[in-house]
Every structure is written in structure tokens, then in C-alpha cells.
């Protein structure tokens, strides 16, 4: 599904190298987790994959089902099936949550040459999905993320994911700022989407989220590279011993 080879990225403004040769392959149907200390480049990786401005790819490649992601505009990546659940979802005053989602859904369909979804079908679908995430009707009517609590914002990200049905879902520290109950809701939402045709890349600091969203593979990222890859037990190791041992080993 997602293939990253020797990806080097620097900050455009500061001429600072952040990613120093990332290699990663996430096959369809799998859940990969990336853990790593602060400043290791985890969030940069998610932003570069989704097409945010401010980064320059100096070497390497990233493909989604064989298509060159790095050549695409952010909206084209979305239509191709990439989704980033933001660490800090953006507030957009004046744009209703429903309007936003319907515009996004139909824009993606249009790009893919599919028919737009009718207002009635959309309403039915969103009500159904919102219910599972315990999102009240009132939250759907409010402007995007405005006045939402931290937990509501993250649940709203998962709602968008559920509505847009992407193939490749990247979750950037979706667990940050969540209490135990909210984390469970979010994890349930993610688990409900797991299937053979879809892949997940879960970026997190803590093993706790991975108790709820069981990964197939865990990567440890440090200083702009993957330094260790293993099974779910690797996350436990980090939880118990921290990163020091792994990093020492990698050097």
C-alpha cells in the first residue's frame, strides 16, 4: 500500500535536515506503529506524506499503491486514498462540520470520476457513523472543530476518516490529550475500519493506544530514520525501558 524508500526531507526555511533516509513499507490490511522520542521526525513524516507546504524532499520516494505521492497536490493525495488524522485538528470558524465533510466527500468522488452523494444519503451515512463515535448532532452542525474539546476534535478526525473511507490512514498522535474513555472510543472507531484493503500507520508516544489498536509491526524512529522494527512486543519494551537502550543499540 504505502512504500517509502530512502526519504530525505529538510525544512524549506531553515535548511535543516529532518528525515535522513526513511524506509517503510506498509502492506494493505496491516497496522504499523511508529514510536520514537520527541524530535525524531514522526510528525514531519506524516506532513510530508500528506503534502503540507514548508518541506523539501531532497532524496528518495514515497508511493501509494505505486503512484508517486510526492508529485501530487494534497487534495489529489486525499482522493487517491491517503488520510492524515491531525495531531492538532484545525478550527475553521464559519464552515459547518457537515458542509465541510460533504464538500470533501463529494470533491474526492468527483476527482475519482464517481457520482456525488445525495444530501439524503450523506445525512443517513453521517448520522450512522457519528452515533458509533458518540458524536452528538449538535457537534455536526457547529463550525469545524470550533469550541470542541480535545477529545471531541480527535473523535471528529475519526469521523472524517470513517466518512471518507481512505485506503491509507495515518494517525498522528491521535491519543494525545485523550482520557481513557475517549481513547477507547477513538480506538473502537479505528478498529471498525480495519479491513483487508486498508492500512494504518499509527504514530504515538505511548504504548497505551497500541493496547487498543493492536499493531502488526512496530517501528522505532530516531533522528530521522527507522532504527528498529519488530512486533508489538517492541512497544512494550519502550514502555518499560524507554528509548535509551534501543537507541544505544542502534548506534
Amino acid at each position, binding site marked *: 500500500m504505502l512504500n517509502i524508500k530512502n526519504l530525505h526531507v529538510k525544512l524549506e526555511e531553515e535548511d535543516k535536515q529532518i528525515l535522513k533516509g526513511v524506509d517503510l513499507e506498509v502492506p494493505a490490511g496491516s497496522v504499523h506503529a511508529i514510536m520514537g522520542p520527541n524530535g525524531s521526525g514522526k510528525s514531519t513524516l506524516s506532513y510530508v506524506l500528506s503534502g*503540507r507546504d514548508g518541506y523539501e524532499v531532497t532524496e528518495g520516494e514515497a508511493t501509494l499503491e505505486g503512484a508517486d505521492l510526492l508529485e501530487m497536490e494534497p487534495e489529489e493525495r*486525499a482522493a487517491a486514498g491517503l488520510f492524515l488524522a491531525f495531531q492538532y485538528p484545525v478550527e*475553521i470558524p464559519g464552515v459547518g462540520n457537515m458542509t*465541510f465533510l460533504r464538500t470533501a466527500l463529494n470533491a474526492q468522488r468527483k476527482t475519482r470520476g464517481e457520482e456525488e452523494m445525495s444530501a439524503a444519503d450523506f445525512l443517513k451515512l453521517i448520522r450512522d457513523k457519528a452515533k458509533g463515535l458518540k458524536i452528538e448532532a449538535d457537534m455536526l452542525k457547529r463550525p469545524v472543530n470550533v469550541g470542541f474539546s480535545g477529545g471531541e476534535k480527535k473523535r471528529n478526525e475519526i469521523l472524517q476518516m470513517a466518512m471518507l473511507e481512505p485506503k491509507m490512514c495515518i494517525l498522528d498522535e491521535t491519543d494525545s490529550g485523550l482520557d481513557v474513555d475517549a481513547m477507547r472510543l477513538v480506538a473502537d472507531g479505528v478498529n471498525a475500519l480495519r479491513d483487508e484493503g486498508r492500512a494504518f500507520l499509527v504514530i504515538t508516544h505511548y504504548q497505551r493506544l497500541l493496547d487498543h489498536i493492536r499493531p502488526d509491526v512496530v517501528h522505532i524512529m530516531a533522528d530521522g530514520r527507522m532504527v528498529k522494527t519488530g512486533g508489538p512486543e517492541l512497544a512494550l519494551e519502550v514502555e518499560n525501558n524507554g528509548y535509551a537502550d534501543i537507541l544505544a543499540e542502534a548506534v
Partner: protein
Amino acid sequence: MALPQAKIDATEARLAALAMPDGAQWARRVREAALERFRKMGLPGPRDEYWRFTRPDTLNAAQTPEAALFDADEPPAFSGLDRLRLVFRDGVFDAEASDPLELEGVEIMRLADATSQDIHWAKDLYGVLEERAQDPVARPFAALNTAFATDGVVLRVTGKPSKPLHFRYLHEETDSDAILHFLVKVEEGAEVTILENGPAAARFNKCFEIDVADRAAFHHIRTQGRDHERRAVTHLFARLGEESAFKSFTLTANGRLTRNEAFIELTGDNAQAHIAGAAMGDGDFHHDDTVFVVHDAVNCESRQVFKKVLKNGAVGAFQGKILVKPGAQKTDGYQISQSLLLDGDAQFLAKPELEIYADDVACSHGSTSGAIDEEALFYLRSRGVPESEAKDLLVLAFLAEAIAEIEDEAIAADIRDRLEGWLLRHRS
């Protein structure tokens, strides 16, 4: 204070090109008095503080600057609504194109007819609110209008008409210079909605004097024509009685020069005045909202919400004042003026003012100027919304607070459609 000779000369040159219409003796007196006011003020000039942001040259010129006719490419605003249509062609009422002037709950008369008769309520209104608004700031084009208005309509609303009255303006001569004056008297407990739209003339001077009696309500929604080359100066003068409501919204897209002035006096307790505007300018566009709200009663509320979207050299200006007179306690005054600059060439000039002589009031004002929020833009794009569409969505979101001032949902939807159309045509 004597006026400078250059100002006197310009003022006299302008007057030489105008003829005062005939009418009953009282109307003649009103017009002569307005002419005298106008002569004392003279035409505005670049040194006048109130015209610091806007050059009045083309409004001052004795000869009307030409304006090309505009080929409409969309149905006119309000087409889908049930309304009573009153049509003006280059500033002249067109009875044939209009609906019969009959609607239950409102008396409708042409200005010329009203000013040739002895109609007491019209006598109490014509030039009266305009004159009250001349202090503390001179509004010469309004005095000029009272003196020389050639046409217009007077309305006395006694009930709640079943549909809005719609003033539809048509522009057919490239050098037309129209001066229209409207009187609206909303009697106690009555309620009316006025709609306005269309290019009116190459140069347009329009005045509304609106007297809203106790517990009465006045609603006003206008779209100023998409004619690119017009020059317009408009005035809304309103006086509000107890528990009355005044709501006005203006959409302005295009126009070389548009100056919309409003002077609203809240004279009865518990009255409410909302005035809002959304302006869209691309290129040779100068739009000026100049608003003056006077609180002269207890527990009144006023809101000014003005939003401008500017690009490609367009200029927006806002001068807004809230004056709270002594004794106007429990005043709730709000004012916001914001611009969204879509590129580095656009310009926004703002002068928000509060002047408060009562101690138990809540007044706030804010003025901002900014670009499209890049974070929000990326968020939308990351969800699959193409960049141009995402920008339009953010522009509409920026304007939402102004559009929210339109109470009628069908009219608000019509306005939103027009905004979307404009954005689509002006994508860069």
C-alpha cells in the same frame, strides 16, 4: 468658517448642472433649505477628515463620468421571491415595468406626487432625518440629494405587508446621473421589508429617510449592482422608536466607487439596530462603509458587522462610530470591521470609533485585516477539497458573520449563491 474659493467654485459648477424639481410650497422650502445647507458645507475635498479614505472627485464632477452598461450573466437578485416590484430606469420610475402600487398594509406614492400634496407625515420626514444627521459631520451629498432628488418613492407602512417591496434599478444610459430619495414611515407596530438591487445609473446618489415608530420593524436587504464602472454614494438615515428594530444588510460586488453612509439614531428605549455589509472587490474597486450610530435611549442594542474581500488592487474603507449620549445607560454596542486580503495589492483602511458619555454601557469594536488562513487551507485540501474550492469556502466562512444578519433564510440563500457565483468568476 468661509469655504476655500476652489471649493465654492466646484460646488457652484456642480449646482449649475442641476435643476430643482417643482413641488408644493412646503417641499420647495425643504429643498431650498437643503440647498442652503449644501452651499454652506460645499462639496467634500481631500482635506475633509470624513473623506480621508475616499476621493470624491468623480462624485463631485459637474459632468457625469461615463459608465459602461453591464451585461447581466445571472438572474437578478431576489428573482425567486414573491415581492412587489418598483422599477427605476436610470433613476426614473417606470410605472409600466412595475407592479401596481397597491399592497395591503402600506401606502405607496411616487415622490413627485407626495411632494406636490399636503401629506403631513411626508412633511415631517422629508429632509428632516437628513438634516439631523448633518451634525456633527457634514454629509454634503445627502443635502444635495434632498435639494435635487428627481424621483423616488414614499411609503407609509401601517400594517405588515404580505411581501417585501423591491426597488429594482436598471442602467441603460452610459452617462446617466440619478438622484433618488425615499421616505419610509413605519407606523407603530408595523413591519416592512425593503429589497434593492441592480445597477442604477452611471452615477447614483440615493437617500433613504426611515422613521421606525415604537414596536415597529424595518428590514432592508440590498445588493449593489455588479456594474464595474459605476460611482455611487448612498445614505441611510434612520430614527428608531421604543422597542423598534432596524436591520439592514448590503452586498456590494464591483463598482469603481461606492460610498455607503448610514446614520442611525436609537431614540426610544429597548430599540435594536443591526447594520451589516459584505463587499467583494477585484481590481479597480473602491468601497467605503461609513456608519454612525447614536444611542440616545436606555437599553438599546446596536451591531455593525462589515466584511470585505479584496484582491488585485481593490480598496476597502470603513469608518464606524458608536456615540453613546449621556443617559443612554445599558447600551450594548458592537462593531466589527474586517477585511480578507487575497493578495498583496489589496488595501483596507479602517477607523473605528467609540464616544461614550454614559457609565453603564457595554461597547466593543474590532478591526482586522488578514490573509487566507494557510493552516485551514491545508486542512481542507488534506481532506480532498481542491485549493480553489477550499479558498472559496474560507472566503464564505469569513463573510458568514455578516450574512448571518439576514433573518430571512431564502434571502440569505440567494445572497450566498451570488457570493459563490462571484467567487467562481473571480478565481485566480
